[in-house]
């Protein structure tokens, strides 16, 4: 019982901050090629690189284009609200069981909306979670788009329109759920989420 439990893998959804550990040997920063350094955005003033990015640096051509694409979809101007893009991300991450992605984007949703009950219900009930009408339409659309084959129907799209989403907002939801069809397939399959070791009580 006195054995300290450190960095244990996490299999349940949580909005707590997690670490991520690759199954593969990441690129060693000191051995990285100029192309890898460029894809990782390593500059003399920024040498902090995550294990995740160092792992993806094995394929610098993909990494170099996916990073700006991800940022444009999740943090671009106008259109769907930041919080609702995060809800799309969470919907995809639930279907794909990416515990790490779900934790990061659940925490961002909670911060942006200043409430925790929506995520708590999603984590408890999964794809079947029952939410308020507006969030339900967004969540259900993201969930169904994430299945293989994608299961979104005209009715799911009509539910978005009937909630008052504009064409640009609906397009942003498609993009935010879809980019997690990408991110989840990297993060969940190339490594595992770990619970950070508890800080020793001083």
């Amino acid at each position, binding site marked *: 019982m006195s054995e300290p439990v450190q960095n244990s893998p996490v299999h349940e959804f949580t909005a707590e901050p997690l670490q991520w550990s690759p*199954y*593969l*040997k990441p690129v060693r920063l000191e051995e990285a090629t100029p192309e890898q350094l460029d894809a990782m955005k390593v500059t003399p003033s920024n040498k902090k690189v995550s294990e995740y990015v160092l*792992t*993806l640096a*094995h*394929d610098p*051509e*993909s990494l*170099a*284009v*996916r990073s*700006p*694409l991800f940022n*444009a*979809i999740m943090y*671009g101007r*106008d*259109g769907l609200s930041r919080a609702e893009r995060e809800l799309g991300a969470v919907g995809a991450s639930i*279907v*794909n*069981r990416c515990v790490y992605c779900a934790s990061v984007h659940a925490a961002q949703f909670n911060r942006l909306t200043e409430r925790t009950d929506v995520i708590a219900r999603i984590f408890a009930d999964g794809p079947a979670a029952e939410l308020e009408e507006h969030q339900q339409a967004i969540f259900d*659309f993201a969930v169904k*788009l*994430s299945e*293989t*084959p*994608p299961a*979104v*129907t*005209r009715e*799911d*799209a*009509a539910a*978005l*329109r009937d909630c008052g989403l*504009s*064409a*640009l907002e*609906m*397009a*942003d*939801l*498609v*993009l935010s*759920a*879809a*980019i997690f*069809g*990408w*991110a*989840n*397939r*990297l993060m*969940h*399959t*190339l490594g*595992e989420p770990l619970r950070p070791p508890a800080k020793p009580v001083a």
Partner: protein
Amino acid sequence: MQTDIIQGLASIAAGSPLAEALKARAEIMRLSDASHDAVLLPKAPGGLSHAMRAALATRMALWLGDDALAAHYQTLLAKTGAAAGELAVTVAATEATPTQPRLAAIVRHIDLLTREPRAATRADIEALEAAGLDEADIVRLSELAAFVNYQARVIAGFRSLQGVM
């Protein structure tokens, strides 16, 4: 102006409400096409040839139920000159799987990432290593699967939106 791959495959008509909305997302569409080229036609393909990538993408598009996307990748496969070989027969067709161990492991992983990524574990990465793939090829394979799954969902999502606009 040239239509991007996604808008073309989703049959988004110029001037339609969705096409107008997507003008504000032109950079995303451009980066999506750049991603397509980075995973299908990379300068450094490593242990995954352009033909193999096109064949695997065709297979994924079929699992994803998207005939137009499958046709796009079949055309790309034909351009590599490998349309009639083993890749076309056992990789680009979901009803068949290759017997050669390295290729079989690759196809198995592509199917897993496409159909049931939630079930993936460390053992699946170890199986690829046992079949002779190095770290770089495993990441390349993962990016290919992840991209095609992204692309198919943007297309499917946009198609569903067009039906209600």
